[in-house]
């Protein structure tokens, strides 16, 4: 790491290490919330919140220190597991850095969108009906878009979810906010519903 001024390191902290500020902010907010509680219920979480705050402040200080002082401390506080893993994953990390960041962000947004979408859809039209939509969208938007795969995966997952959760665990997977089992299941469930 090259020598840089405190201002530059501060900017780096804001732009690249935003997570540290976010976590610190959240911990401070929770400390403030815990101060509203009675002494006994707040003691336990407060001890750990303060510990977390100290850890985050130290992390911040290490990043703001000139590399001459900061880097040795950072090495000292690196997990042993990371050292073991780094030998094996070094090449992968390099590859990742070289990859297209925009494409990665797009894929990430689609994946998160699909998961949230499935959550919302399952609430509205039930898990059983949301499942084929989700599988098709996932395979076409994230994967190879193979039709045979889509059909096979949908059938296998539908059967598994239906028998494991619906039949064995009696979870109402066939009912949503907008649609109930009576609307569609009697067609092929022999009036069981």
């Amino acid at each position: 790491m090259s020598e840089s001024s405190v201002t530059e390191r501060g900017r780096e902290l804001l732009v690249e290490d935003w997570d540290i500020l976010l976590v610190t902010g959240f911990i401070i907010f929770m400390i403030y919330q815990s101060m509203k509680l009675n002494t006994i219920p707040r003691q336990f979480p407060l001890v750990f919140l303060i510990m977390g705050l100290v850890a985050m402040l130290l992390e911040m200080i290490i990043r703001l220190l000139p590399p001459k002082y900061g880097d040795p401390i950072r090495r000292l506080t690196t997990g042993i597991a990371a050292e073991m893993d780094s030998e094996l994953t070094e090449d992968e990390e390099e590859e990742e850095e070289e990859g297209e960041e925009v494409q990665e962000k797009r894929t990430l947004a689609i994946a998160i969108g699909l998961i949230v979408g499935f959550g919302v859809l399952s609430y509205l039209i039930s898990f059983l009906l949301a499942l084929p939509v989700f599988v098709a969208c996932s395979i076409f938007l994230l994967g190879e878009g193979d039709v045979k795969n889509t059909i096979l995966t949908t059938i296998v997952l539908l059967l598994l979810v239906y028998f494991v959760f619906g039949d064995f665990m009696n979870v109402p997977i066939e009912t949503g906010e907008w649609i109930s089992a009576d609307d569609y299941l009697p067609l092929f469930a022999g009036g069981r519903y």
Partner: protein
Amino acid sequence: MVSAQLFGEALSIVFELELLLIIFAVSLIGVALGALPGIGPALAMALFFPLTFVVPPEQGLSIMAVLYGSTAYGGSISAIIVNVPGTGGSAATLLDGYPMTQRGEGAKAIGISTVSSFSGAMFGLICLTVFAPTLGRWALGIGQAQFFWLAVIGLSAVSAVSGRSLLKSIAAMCLGVVFATIGMDPIRGQERFTFDTFYLEAGMNLIVVLIGIFAISQAIAFSLQMKQEDGTEIAELGGSAMSGFKSVWNNKFGVLRSSIIGTAVGAIPGAGMSTANFLSYIVAANTSKNPEEFGTGREEGLIAAEVANNGSTMGALIPAMTLAIPGGAAAAVFIGVMLSYGITPGPQAFEGPLPYVIFISIFLGDVVFLVFGLVAAGYIAKIIELPRDVLFSSIVIFSLVGAFAMRNNNFDVGAAIIFGLIGYLLMRRGYSIIAFILGFILTPIAEKGFQRALLISDGDWMIFFDGALNIALFLASLLLLSSPILFRLYRT
């Protein structure tokens, strides 16, 4: 001492057709899941967690214990066949396993790995059977302050699981603690951090958090690997799997040494399978007459790595079942399952035939993976060819339906998604999600001990430093937490 009567009762419970079929199926599913790169024991156990609601504790805990062992073994299959470890605990396995496949001895490598895994698991199981009940009885005599310190030792394991930054992992553990304290305070019943929300009054549900943190976050991570890893092709497996027996027998002293290393490392809070796997491999290489041949397809290397990682799974269950100190993420999930059944790790876990049911189930589960590993590992390995998009859909669907299944509450689905995003962000930014889970799972035990001790002492904090045992436990937790720093200071 093993009670013959309880052991007999346990046998009669296990040898009912229903549980036998469950063990058989779970062991096979565990091997298959373990073989899928990215799905480790913790994620597999999180996915199976919702299914345990509908079965009694003996069956639920047996399912989890069998799954733990078989997933750990399954990781070696992909390491040997496609040079990608199925679990972190098989990372050292590929160093000698894959070169064997490349020179046409894939089936032999699988055979060695299967027999080694079984041997390591058996040694660990014997240790678990002998030491766990003794430790459990010892736990009967300890007080509330000591219970608190034992849980703190478990939390200090964060130092062993931390990734790039110990400080970030400590913060992640603290976040886990804070999320676990949402809801009612365990002694006085006062609401904490609920923000006047009805949903938060009951607290954050363990299963929802586990599903979010392990499964959803991993599914998001899978979405980024789709293009990279699709099209994995399985090499032809040469040699005979049965010759694995002979190879392992010829290395019996190495097997014993690696079993001891694996079980001991597994029992160390936070050390886990990866450490056991690597440490055993390094020791085997350093004590070998031909260390330069390690990494080129040497059988001793494969045996050392595989014996140790399966031994470590059993080792991890010793402190988990007796003192609520998890050896790793999967052991933490196991503690979570115990707590969800209302069983507090410690003396309560050793009442009646329950522990023996678990031990016998683990044994049978291991026999299943031994047989199928030798006979059909090549077929199980086909699962590695499963496209990532299919895997992504399957994990998300099972996770979210599982989160919903617990209370038939759609808010749980939303919470699982939110925790998935939190987990992914933590992972991406270098915070340990295992540290978060340790904080979340151990908080109820730590806080109960903490508050009860303060009630007994009338609010005097000195109760936590009263007596030699309290001070020893406090120092042990401090030592464990600062171990990476001390280790580096010692080295320099």
